[in-house]
């Protein structure tokens, strides 16, 4: 099969053709999509573990008592477990809400406003479009092929049919069905969860919310089991599982399992190539200095990285001025362990800065400092607030950082900033970010060092909740702040 001829239906492939296609990677998932998927997976896991352990009543319980005891033991008390369940759930809702709002906006802009003229379509297509708008994506909309696929798939698993599966889009009908289920259940789960967490509206509403929560989760779980099985265990779909990590699938898999999508990719590839050829003169004129970076948004052929240890080391030591992150990570861990053993406390940053500040305040306005309920925590009679491990640790960090940079010849005076913003903007943003970070760190009683690192190391649930929230907030924040860095 040549690159130019795109078949209408999947045709049998010659062995060398198949081998060639299996070597070629096609981009399937956007990185944001993958992050969201795994975020979702972690949330579901955490929520299922705690959620099932929270139903204790003999009338409604689904898990055995020994399981409840184990999970309760991990959290110390059931109340902590519930707090965890709520915190994770609310984080999940916030992330999804942001995703939904921006995703919906993008969808409307790209597909509805500039794309399909919906009123020209027949009624059933309009209904279909409505479904797509609802789900913000055509990718999960069921069509006639999908229905046939479902039938064939089931018959094949049961060994009653050898008929080939009808061609599928980027997601197969099973995945779409699961998406349907999830799209319908998630708002119910979220709404009922919020009702229960914050005891909203009325007692009767809470009484029913808990039942609906259970029902919706129950249905999703039954679908989730198939989803996990298909993705992680079922051999045919293994590339789909890896695609959620790398974002790529090999072309052969795409051809066999998602033929319609493969076709689309091929068509777009061809269109793009034509456009490139036509516009090459223009682009040569336009470029000045910066190298051309036209990238195919959908499919990119990239050389396979080298496998094995050699490839790993190559990636790790690609930038000789830095240590490999894995090695540095282990080193940091050992440092942390050492501080626990030697100093009796973990690493931290914001706590140290706080002490500098307390010392400053106590020097300038001693009576205010003593009477402030917050600052006075750090003031012991006859002892300077500066006599603390973190204070000296910070000095060490500064010195150590300088030495490290000097050895690696990285020491220079520069303003790290995105290409499109001025220095002033950068300073302002850095100041604002610093204020937020400082405020947030003291609110959380620790920063990424003291709380996430040191707390996480001793398996503090608070620390892990903090980390989860940091990543979630970072994910959301990056979206808004991307223009300042790209």
């Amino acid at each position, binding site marked *: 099969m040549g690159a130019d001829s795109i078949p209408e239906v999947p045709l049998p492939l010659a062995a060398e053709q198949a081998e060639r296609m299996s070597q070629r990677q096609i981009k399937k998932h956007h990185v944001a999509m993958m992050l969201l998927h795994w975020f979702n997976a972690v949330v579901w896991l955490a929520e299922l573990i705690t959620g099932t352990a929270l139903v*204790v009543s003999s*009338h409604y319980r689904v898990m055995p008592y020994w399981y409840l005891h184990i999970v309760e033991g991990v959290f110390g008390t059931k109340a902590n477990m519930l707090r965890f369940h709520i915190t994770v759930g609310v984080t999940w809702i916030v992330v999804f809400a942001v995703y939904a709002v921006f995703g919906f906006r993008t969808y409307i802009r790209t597909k509805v406003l500039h794309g399909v003229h919906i009123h020209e379509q027949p009624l059933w297509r309009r209904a279909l479009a409505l479904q797509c708008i609802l789900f913000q994506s055509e990718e999960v909309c069921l069509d006639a092929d999908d229905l046939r696929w479902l039938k064939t798939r089931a018959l094949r698993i049961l060994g009653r049919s050898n008929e080939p599966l009808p061609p599928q889009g980027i997601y197969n009908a099973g995945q779409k069905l699961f998406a349907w289920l999830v799209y319908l259940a998630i708002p119910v789960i979220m709404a009922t969860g919020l009702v229960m967490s914050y005891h909203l509206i009325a007692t009767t509403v*809470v009484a*029913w919310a808990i039942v609906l929560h259970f029902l919706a989760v129950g249905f999703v779980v*039954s679908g989730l*089991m*198939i989803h996990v099985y298909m993705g992680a265990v079922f051999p*045919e779909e293994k590339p789909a599982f890896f695609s959620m990590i790398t974002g790529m699938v090999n072309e052969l898999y795409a051809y066999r399992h998602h033929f319609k999508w493969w076709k689309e990719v091929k068509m777009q590839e061809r269109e793009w190539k034509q456009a490139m050829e036509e516009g090459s003169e223009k682009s040569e004129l336009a470029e000045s200095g910066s190298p051309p970076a036209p990238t195919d948004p959908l499919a990119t052929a990239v050389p396979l990285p080298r496998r094995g240890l050699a490839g790993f080391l190559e990636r790790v030591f690609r930038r000789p001025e830095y240590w490999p992150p894995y090695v540095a990570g282990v080193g940091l861990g050992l440092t942390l362990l050492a501080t626990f053993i030697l100093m009796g406390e973990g690493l931290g940053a914001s706590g140290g800065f706080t002490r500098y500040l307390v010392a400053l305040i106590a020097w300038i306005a001693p009576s205010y400092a003593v009477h402030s309920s917050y600052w006075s925590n750090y003031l012991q009679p006859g002892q300077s607030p500066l006599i603390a491990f973190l204070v000296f640790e910070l000095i060490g960090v500064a010195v150590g950082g300088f030495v490290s940079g000097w050895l690696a010849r990285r020491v220079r005076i520069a303003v790290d900033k995105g290409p499109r913003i001025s220095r002033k903007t950068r300073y302002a943003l850095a100041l604002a970010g610093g204020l937020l970070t400082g405020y947030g760190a003291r609110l959380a009683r620790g920063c990424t060092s003291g709380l996430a690192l040191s707390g996480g190391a001793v398996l503090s649930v608070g620390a892990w909740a903090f980390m989860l929230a940091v990543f979630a907030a970072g994910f959301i924040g990056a979206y808004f702040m991307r223009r300042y860095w790209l």
Partner: protein
Amino acid sequence: MARYAMVIDLKKCVGCQACTVACNSEWEVPIGHARTHVRATSVAGNFPNLLSTFYVAQCNHCDHPACIALCPTGATYQAEDGIVKVDRGLCIGCGYCVEACPYEARYINPVIKKVDKCDFCSARLERGQEPACVETCTGHAKFFGDLEDSRSDVFKMVYEQGAGRLETSEVAIGPNVYYLGKKEHVNLVLTEFPPHRPRMPEAGTVWEKVVKPLVLAAVGVTFLGQAAAFFRQLMKGESLFEDEGEK
């Protein structure tokens, strides 16, 4: 371990509601609600041979509490000393237990939106104080103590003076608030304020009878289907599946 109980001496109770208010302010019970309160019976009999007394209502910390089984999250539990408590951190305010209680001793606190009820002032007991209602009772009609301590007032009143429980043949879950007094007074209280059968709210019934079996069936069927597929996969070998598309 102790087995805490209360005895209300109907001969001494004058229905002054001091207990109600002391409890309300001890526990910041919102206005219009109560963890304990006193109600007068109607006046029974014919003039001038009349009968009336008071009913002191509160959680009975029953031997077999109807509320605990219904609490979905386990927020309501019974401590080893027999006190039925509510873990506020776990309560979601669904109100199942409110329906369940035959003595209507529970209410949803509209401020914190969680269930609240008498816990024999556990926090005070820990500080070595008596329950607020007992301490303030103007008629000294309320007694609190350990039924396993034969020297306690409540032991004597229950086992020697015959203080009775508000139980009927229908509802006998072992309440641990006892009523001491003339038989006709105790009977009058029981006639006018009988415990109702433990109730499950509609939502709970639907959950137990419909939703839970449905979910278990759905998850079970899926699981079995997958198990079958997995078994087949193991039997046939993985390669077979990978090539399936080509056959």
